[in-house]
């Protein structure tokens, strides 16, 4: 073979490698499409046929650390649940609070004698799982509890929510039921509206798909109901070795052969972070927890089992496509830019195919997802439109309607882009997705400055909320690689939920 032949072979190999790189960006898109295509099947494949009214004795364990602003309202709302009062007991575990939480709890114990129990830890600050375990140990000391509801101090249960959860226990295979955590702040800002929309897409939409697939990824931390049998089967306590205790509880339940059901119509309101900094801390904790879960259950992934569905290929693809999304975005962009230099015409075809697919999937996911909770979607209509980010929308338009952005729009202003300008524009479009994570990071850095009040929201609307979440996931890789200390960092709650 001549040198030219070798160069040809190397070029072909390079093109194949680039195509493989680019295709990694399509995997999350395919996973999202698969998830949302499954949702309508929930009309027929759901757990309602096995459900029937059930009213077990429910012990509610309510961890509280400096929750004086919210704990009273939470207890009041729990006592207003449409559920027989004699079948409910609320165990408030005061994690050595230093505010007026003990006084508020004492007043509620007096107000609801026999229904509210005050359990105080003298040494606190070890994290939610330790606090929960303190309460669970007390609750398991007698046989009264038939079902255990784990919740957060700040959430508000709608009156019908608990009985909508307990009805699934008519099926003895069910070990746990999760409710829909809806963003419920009274004073919403752009970020809480984005979070609210994210919760719509990830819960009443995506978790219905997980019901159909028979595997749930995570019970909601603030709304999970376990049977006594399930709680005992997973060791009678919550895992304290990682930051992802809810996910580990969910996995252990299913690995023990019990079903986890998501009940989309049991609605629980929660306040979510209003600042990027607070959201970053919360999600970094979740993302680092997911790193440990992925490693801990390495024997489960892609190993189908007769006992559970966590090892199925669809569940594995969905799990890893979310967990590795930032890497997929970077690798895909590297492949696309490399392909541009190796074979520009092919790169154009590949770019358009990828982004047309992404645009169709995005439109389908949002159009289907927002209908599953129209109340939140109406409140967040601006965030619905700009969810992928304004610049990503322009990239989608570039793929879907070639010439519109490069030729026709500049032409309206009498501008014709030169070849160099078009090439620079193309490279910018190809690298935008990984770069959007940098913009999201800049939004975080800008937040405490004087300009941050308008600059941070502007940057998030431009980069997209998804890019912000990807940037946080990427940060979790860095923290894990550096073996940074994993601390339980409580998200501040000040009682903003609309009651």
């Amino acid at each position: 073979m001549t040198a030219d032949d070798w160069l040809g072979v190397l070029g072909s190999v390079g093109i194949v490698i680039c195509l493989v790189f680019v295709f990694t960006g399509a995997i999350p898109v395919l996973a999202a499409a698969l998830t949302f295509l499954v949702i309508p099947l929930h009309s027929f494949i759901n757990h309602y046929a096995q459900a029937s009214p059930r009213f077990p004795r429910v012990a509610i364990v309510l961890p509280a650390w400096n929750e004086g602003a919210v704990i009273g309202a939470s207890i009041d709302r729990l006592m207003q649940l449409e559920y027989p009062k004699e079948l409910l007991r609320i165990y408030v575990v005061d994690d050595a609070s230093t505010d007026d939480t003990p006084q508020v709890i004492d007043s509620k114990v007096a107000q609801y004698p026999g229904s509210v129990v005050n359990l105080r830890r003298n040494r606190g600050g070890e994290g939610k799982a330790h606090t929960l375990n303190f309460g669970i140990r007390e609750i398991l000391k007698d046989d009264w509890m038939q079902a255990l509801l784990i919740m957060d101090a700040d959430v508000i249960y709608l009156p019908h929510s608990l009985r909508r959860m307990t009805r699934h226990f008519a099926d003895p295979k069910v070990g746990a039921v999760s409710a829909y955590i809806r963003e419920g702040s009274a004073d919403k800002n752009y970020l809480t509206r984005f979070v609210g929309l994210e919760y719509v897409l990830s819960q009443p939409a995506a978790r219905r798909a997980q019901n159909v697939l028979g595997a749930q990824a995570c019970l909601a931390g603030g709304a999970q109901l376990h049977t006594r049998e399930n709680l005992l089967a997973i060791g009678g306590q919550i895992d304290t070795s990682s930051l992802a205790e809810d996910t580990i509880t969910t996995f252990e339940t299913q690995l023990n052969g019990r079903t986890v059901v998501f009940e989309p119509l049991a609605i629980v309101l929660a306040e979510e972070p209003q600042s990027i900094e607070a959201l970053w801390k919360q999600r970094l904790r979740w993302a680092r927890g997911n790193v440990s879960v992925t490693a801990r259950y390495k024997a489960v992934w892609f190993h189908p089992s007769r006992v559970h569905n966590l090892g199925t290929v669809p569940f594995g693809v969905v799990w890893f496509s979310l967990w590795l999304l930032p890497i997929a975005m970077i690798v895909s962009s590297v492949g696309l830019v490399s392909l541009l230099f190796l074979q520009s015409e092919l790169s154009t075809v590949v770019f358009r195919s990828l982004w047309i697919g992404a645009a169709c999937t995005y439109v389908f996911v949002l159009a289907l997802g927002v209908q599953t909770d129209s109340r939140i979607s109406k409140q967040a209509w601006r965030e619905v439109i700009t969810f992928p980010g304004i610049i990503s929308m322009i990239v989608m338009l570039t793929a879907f309607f070639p010439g519109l952005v490069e030729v026709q729009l500049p032409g309206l202003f009498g501008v014709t882009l030169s070849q160099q300008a078009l090439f620079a524009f193309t490279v910018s479009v190809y690298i935008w997705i990984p770069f959007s994570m940098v913009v999201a990071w800049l939004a975080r850095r800008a937040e405490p400055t004087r300009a941050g009040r308008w600059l941070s929201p502007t940057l998030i609307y431009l980069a997209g909320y998804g890019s912000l979440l990807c940037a946080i996931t990427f940060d979790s890789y860095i923290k894990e690689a550096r073996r940074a200390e994993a601390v339980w960092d409580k998200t501040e709650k000040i009682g903003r939920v609309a009651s």
Partner: protein
Amino acid sequence: MSDQHESAFDAAQQELEKDTRGERRLIAYFVVALAVVAVLVVLHQVFYA
């Protein structure tokens, strides 16, 4: 069963039947979402194919 429990049971039973029927709305949501995507694809075909 006490009157209170019987009443709660009846309410829960009616709620379950209503919720079961309500899940069929997902089919309509799916059709609407597909229609939105179809409009996008048709626009693409008409103006840029």
